[in-house]
């Protein structure tokens, strides 16, 4: 892969992305427009996250990629291979070892620490998009902190269903200012967003980057009489017995039998003392 720069993107592009990231960190929760590049993988496959990771990675980094909490889902494998090829960085499946973690739809169960970067892949960065399709309007609403529409939506959920009927991509308010889409993570993960690591969000097709600096306040929207409740399946993991992790439901036969296992495969394997892979990936 000598034809391509370290981590694929040219340095000018990385500089442009880093500027957007810095702006995002300076204005927590604000969506910064950036000149997203066409990547050699389709829009919708994590092109925003990949560009943010490419702009963050250094040769010394140790990189982890998860999709749905697992390191071995096909798209996680594909993105990990992409950076093994183009950056030659060390990769790992262990959350604690990684310096940069790219994720789709989950936050690892293992608490992240200072110095780690969590990069989210974001399909639709605008939390107000399905209430107001026009970008010109939603940008105005953010500028004026006009979030009434969102509260009306949550209220209508309660009126219709008795509770807020949003199970993932549950909207949050960051540092008391911007309402932000946490990407399609289950609301179970929302409380983890107040963390020690830097959280960066990349939306390639929509050309937006946003960020949550370490230890920022992240509040899931709710009402006093209908407080936010993170939800999960009322079971323990069938493999490691954990009672406090987010679970995947697996259909095991056609007679309705099911089992529940940790969605975070690294966390589950760690609890079972069953690490099969340590560091992996050699530079080429």
């Amino acid at each position: 892969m000598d034809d391509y720069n370290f981590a694929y993107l040219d340095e000018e592009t990385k500089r442009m992305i880093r500027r957007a990231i810095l702006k995002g960190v300076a204005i927590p929760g604000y969506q910064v427009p950036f000149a997203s590049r066409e990547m050699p993988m389709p829009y919708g496959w994590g092109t925003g996250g990949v560009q943010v990771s490419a702009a963050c990675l250094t040769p010394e980094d140790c990189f982890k990629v998860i999709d749905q909490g697992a390191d071995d889902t096909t798209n996680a494998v594909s993105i990990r291979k992409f950076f093994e090829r183009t950056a030659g960085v060390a990769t790992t499946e262990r959350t604690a070892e990684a310096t940069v973690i790219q994720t789709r739809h989950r936050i690892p169960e293992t608490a992240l620490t200072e110095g780690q970067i969590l990069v989210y892949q974001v399909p639709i960065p605008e939390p107000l998009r399905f209430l107001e399709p026009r970008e010109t309007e939603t940008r105005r609403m953010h500028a004026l902190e006009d979030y009434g529409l969102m509260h009306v939506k949550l209220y209508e959920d309660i009126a219709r269903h008795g509770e807020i009927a949003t199970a993932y991509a549950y909207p949050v308010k960051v540092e008391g200012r911007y309402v932000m889409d946490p990407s399609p993570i289950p609301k179970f993960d929302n409380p983890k967003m107040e963390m020690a690591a830097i959280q960066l969000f990349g939306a390639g097709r929509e050309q937006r980057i946003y960020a949550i600096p370490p230890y920022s306040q992240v509040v899931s929207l709710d009402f006093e009489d209908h407080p936010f409740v993170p939800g999960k399946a009322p079971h323990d993991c069938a493999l490691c017995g954990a009672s406090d992790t987010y679970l995947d439901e697996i259909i095991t036969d056609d007679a309705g039998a099911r089992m529940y296992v940790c969605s975070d495969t690294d966390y589950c394997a760690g609890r079972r003392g069953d690490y099969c892979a340590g560091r992996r990936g050699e530079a080429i």
Partner: protein
Amino acid sequence: MYVAVKGGEQAIDAAHDWLAEERRGDVAVPELSVAQIREQMALAVNRVMAEGSLYDPDLAALAIKQARGDLIEAIFLIRAYRTTLPRFGSAQPVETGQMACDRRISATFKDAPGGQVLGPTFDYTHRLIDFALAAEGEPPVAREGEANAEAMPRVTGMLGRDGLIQQEAPSDEAPPDLTRTPLEFPATRPLRLQALTRGDEGFVLSMAYSTQRGYGRNHPFVGELRIGAVPVEMEIPELGFAVEIGEVVLTECETVNQFIGSKTEPPQFTRGYGLVFGQTERKAISMALVDRALRCEELGEDNLGAPAQDEEFVIAHSDNIQATGFLEHIKLPHYVDFQAELELVRKLRSEAMAEHREAAE
């Protein structure tokens, strides 16, 4: 006993091998060469260059081969390659009035200086399957004519001399680059035109068609459609003057549309503009109609709320690489989100059923 699904890596490698084998097809049939695609599938190559925003017929032909003829996939390959190329600078604006035209027609004047040139068009072919093409034979030879030495000035230029068509304000400003700056709304006309020229042919066609059927009608006449080669010149800083660096084939369409006028300005025609790489006239005409529809407010027309008049709607959805990516990504795993929905629906159902039971008791 359930074992956590592993093997994504092997599955991907195996899928890629299988894809490569399927691409080649029956090995008893000779393999297509890139040159064959370039020469004999030229209109597909043109579309890939236009929507890939990269003028390179050989590369486009290779992409079509690699993509097994899936043109959107081929466009994607070209785009992903293009984005890695450095930008050396901007060429001088091409002078389409000096185009060496293979085809030049006007629907507004029976004749014009330079004449009407039909060129290699399907327009008056009868769409009957030519079974003779199934057999390989002697290559067809077109009859030769005298080369036309007459200049072919643009038709709208002739209207413009009499003030009959609105003049666009000239500008020496370098236009913004859609591929290097994030698109923000409202966009400017140069950005809109860039988005339309690389937009999906089918989408732009349907948007244009919708204006013809009354959703933002703008009464277009094809003032002129011309296809041919133009030289590309670039100013080299070290030299201090412009030199020709190559030649591109373009299709240009200018439509002459409904006039506007006011108390201070006498009525005059307006125009829509289409310019696309290669011989791509369906796209160029469509582009001109959509460009004109998007100018409704600038030209003081009522915005009827038609889709083709809505800049954000048109531009945000015209790119087929963005569209196909986001559309197809829903086949990726979503079981974490789905699990969250599943739990929520189960909870809502159990609450609702408990209420029903209470009501029944």
